[in-house]
């Protein structure tokens, strides 16, 4: 007699010393529901993963409460029923996925609304990502993550050309550090052949010839030449800008608070600023995608946040750093750094990480000393000639929106017609983004939408001007045309007032310090804004006609200045 899914999960739990006696485990149409109490958060996560590891399980709703963790308290923002518009499609979340989908849909004659709760696009994982466009080789074949990664990688080059986004085929060297693990190379090669992913196996000497800064302790390696690097936030901004240029209406500082249906069909998307009538909604809410999906009436999957910390290094130390991104392949890898690698951003900063830390707090973007040390220990041994402590220029963390099946969850809601969930988008989500947008388009067509080509769609976005990278002659011309391109605001990255004003007045306006930083690199240099912050505050206040104390780092609550001084000169 075959065992039921629930029975198998009970066995799995007891094999892993999880007392499942008090836990309620149920299953319906491939979705497993876990309820009850455990002692620790990591046990709750392990339980979710064990359930999600079964092939027959398509989703896990994990309601386990951990005694050591403060339960998530959601104070839902008040919704505003007042109608503010109609849309054929409402896309929730302007991360890389939501923005890619909005831009893909703008190829058709549709009224599209893109809502984002933050003050800028790309405020979640899309801004705190290492920027690698993976080849797809490490993904388990026959998964969505594998298929969409490989397809996305193929689409990238042309996409970045259209959108004026930095992109280069960096390749990736993956090292084998133990003699007894060299057999992995054959498996990798076989998978590459089967999936049509170019792979080259390298001997120790070949690897060291290719990248002399690598440790001589390596035993073997392979390269995946189709691996590439892009700028995740510049791509997201470009997607959103091009979407807006093609008619998409972007609403920033707009948080979805509810979905309304009639006879099981979506009719309204309610936000804190008013509601939209619509027939179709795409949930690309990232780390909150399960909460949005639940607004359809039922819980369908659970997101478990997994933090990734990254360290950025000074551009001047690039010469001592490996030029080709590097990773390590091993059996039973350190679960806290999983993959992770050393790479160089498209702006020339060496970059190490990320870690992989399960966290109960969806917004835990803090970087810990343990995280920093873990990353440094790991890659110090890979690139021994580089001095990370001396070179650190910044560090940050993003939170991956993983589901317990560790698979992309891209499918129509089971609870409400007209809602498509695009959730669980973790690594290789950036690489897969263009392919995810394509896939969503198919799902939209399957919902019965008639897709009529938008004849005026223009795929080409004009990029933002970068004074520093222009030749002298062009610089001169530019200043003659507009003297503000001759006014330097950021000394480290040589950003001019003209560029700052450009970023404030583009199709997706930059309204905060961080938003301007992402578009111009202002404050990203080695002084990290010490010099330019006061100047930037003045510029933003002037351009937005706001008092200085209203200018924020990244939206309401992050204002920089409290009040004028007692003797404010004027």
């Amino acid at each position, binding site marked *: 007699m075959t065992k039921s899914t629930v029975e198998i999960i009970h066995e799995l739990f007891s094999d892993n010393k999880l007392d499942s006696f008090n836990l309620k485990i149920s299953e319906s149409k491939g979705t497993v529901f876990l309820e009850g109490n455990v002692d620790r958060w990591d046990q709750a996560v392990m339980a979710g993963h064990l359930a999600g590891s079964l092939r027959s399980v398509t989703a896990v709703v994990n309601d386990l409460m951990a005694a050591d963790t403060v339960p998530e308290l959601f104070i839902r923002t008040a919704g505003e029923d007042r109608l503010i518009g109609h849309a054929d499609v409402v896309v929730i979340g302007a991360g890389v996925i939501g923005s890619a989908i909005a831009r893909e849909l703008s190829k058709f004659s549709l009224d599209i609304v893109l809502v984002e709760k933050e003050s800028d696009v790309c405020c979640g994982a899309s801004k705190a990502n290492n920027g690698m466009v993976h080849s797809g080789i490490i993904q388990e074949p026959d998964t969505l993550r594998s298929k969409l990664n490989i397809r996305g990688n193929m689409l990238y080059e042309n996409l970045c050309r259209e959108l004026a986004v930095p992109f280069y085929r960096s390749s990736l060297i993956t090292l084998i550090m133990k003699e007894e693990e060299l057999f992995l190379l054959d498996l990798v090669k076989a998978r590459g052949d089967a999936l049509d992913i170019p792979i080259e196996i390298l001997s120790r000497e070949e690897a060291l010839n290719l990248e002399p800064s690598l440790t001589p302790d390596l035993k073997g390696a392979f390269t995946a030449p189709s691996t590439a690097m892009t700028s995740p936030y510049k791509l997201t901004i470009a997607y959103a800008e091009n979407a807006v240029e093609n008619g998409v209406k972007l609403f920033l500082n707009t948080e979805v608070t509810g979905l309304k249906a009639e006879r099981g069909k979506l009719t309204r998307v309610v936000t804190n600023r008013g509601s939209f009538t619509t027939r179709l909604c795409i949930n690309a809410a990232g780390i909150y995608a399960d909460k949005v999906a639940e607004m359809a009436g039922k819980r369908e999957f659970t997101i478990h946040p997994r933090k990734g910390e990254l360290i950025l290094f000074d551009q*001047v130390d690039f010469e001592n750093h490996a030029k080709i991104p590097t990773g390590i392949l091993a059996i039973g890898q350190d679960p806290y750094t999983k993959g992770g690698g050393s790479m160089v951003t498209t702006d020339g900063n060496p970059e190490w990480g990320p870690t992989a830390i399960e966290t109960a707090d969806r*917004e835990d*973007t*803090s*970087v*810990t*000393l343990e*995280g*920093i040390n873990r990353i440094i220990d790991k890659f110090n041994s890979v690139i021994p000639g580089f001095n990370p*402590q001396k070179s*650190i*220029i910044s*560090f*940050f963390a993003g939170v991956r929106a993983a589901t317990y099946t560790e698979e992309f969850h891209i499918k129509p809601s089971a609870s409400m017609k007209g809602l498509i969930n695009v959730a669980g988008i973790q690594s290789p989500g950036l690489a897969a983004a263009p392919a995810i947008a394509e896939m969503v388009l198919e799902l939209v067509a399957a919902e019965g939408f008639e897709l009529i080509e938008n004849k005026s769609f223009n795929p080409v976005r004009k990029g933002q001007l970068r004074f*520093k990278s222009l030749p*002298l002659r062009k*610089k*001169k011309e530019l*200043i*003659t045309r507009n*003297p*503000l391109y*001759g*006014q*330097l605001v950021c*000394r*480290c990255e*040589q950003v*001019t007032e003209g560029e700052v004003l450009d970023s404030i007045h583009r199709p997706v306006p930059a309204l905060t310090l961080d938003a301007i930083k992402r578009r111009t690199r202002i404050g990203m240099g*080695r*002084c*990290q*804004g*010490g*010099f330019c*912050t*006061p100047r930037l*505050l*003045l510029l933003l206040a002037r351009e937005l006609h706001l008092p*200085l*104390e209203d200018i*924020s*780092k*990244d*939206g*309401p*609550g*992050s*204002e*920089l*200045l*409290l*009040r*004028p*001084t*007692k*003797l*404010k*000169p*004027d």
Partner: protein
Amino acid sequence: MNNSRDYIAVIGGGPAGLAAALSAVNAGCNRILLIERDRELGGILNQCVHDGFGTLGLGRSLTGPEYAAHYIDEVIKKPEIEIVSNTAVLSLKKNRRIIAVNQSGLLDIKPSAVILAMGCRERSRFQTVIPGFRPAGIFTAGTVQRLINIEGMLPGEKVVVLGSGDIGMIMARRLTLEGAEVRGVFEIAPRPGGLTRNIVQCLYDYNIPLHLSHTVTFIHGKKRIEGVTIAPVDQNLNPLSDKEFDVECDTLVLSVGLIPENELSREAGVELDPLTGGPFVDQHMATSVPGIYAGGNVVHVYDLVDYVTGSADKAGLGAADYIKKKLKKGSARLLPGFNVAHVIPQYLSLPLEQTLEIFLRVKEPAENVKIRLSCREQFIFEKKERIVRPSEMIKVKIPLDFINSIQRNDQITVSVE
């Protein structure tokens, strides 16, 4: 500006640039281009409204703007000096070609000599590796100084200061005067980083607690900073995590060190001293690249503006001499010895022609010590000093008689024993 073919470009119009330009004129150079990034000359002095400037050099205690004005008044009187303000240097090459930019266009020049006078910048939260979130409300002390004294804006009212550098302590006082509550100054080292007079006048007089051997180990708050975790540190400066405590604040002010600003120096191929972060210089402030001189905090971070001015005086003179082709032959090396963190100059160009002035910082505080110069295993000079502290720069004058035995390729060790 007259049309002499030879001219000096001075990069930076702060205290160092002003002094260098004046001294070059006094040394006979009749054409100088003073390039300043900001609208006005004076550099960081303009935001230093506290007093204490000029006590050594001018015999008066002035505010920063007053001290700057003293030199600016002189500079604008000199027809030899052309001031190009609101102009940022983008590039400096080994052949002394300078590309600068302003609202009228590009400046593409190749002066006969260049004086680096770009000053220094502050270490950031990331370089200091303070973990935690990245909220608004974390500022370097210099940024807060500019916001309050120039822009007239107060960043917050519950303040923690990390680091007891001079600007940190001065800003603790300034914030208090503006009505903010400074909840403490925390210093990772077992002793203060700044001058004794600032500890007294800025902290003790205002009841601001100074906690030595403490550091910030975590920054809390997702949007605006809400607090910091503080830990005492052991002798190796490692935080004692079991003794951590939290302090609520809306602002964190960092005064955790200054770094000479040497992006242009590096581009020009000037060799930098890893001990100071600034260029290697000789007693005339000549760098390793012929015709490129350096003065002030771009060389190493001085504690007093009077010393900045003094070092820039030498750079101005050196550059003027360079144009007059008064070249030196051969050089000896000055090296830091026992209890010396670094010493300026690092090179001596021979022959030595006058009293030598050297600057040094000690690693550890000490009392009743001797500053000793030794060459070929023999002491050549010795000077008693009652108290030495790492926070206070030591200036030593060595008459020519003691050092005229120095020969080419000699290594002279400076120690404090």
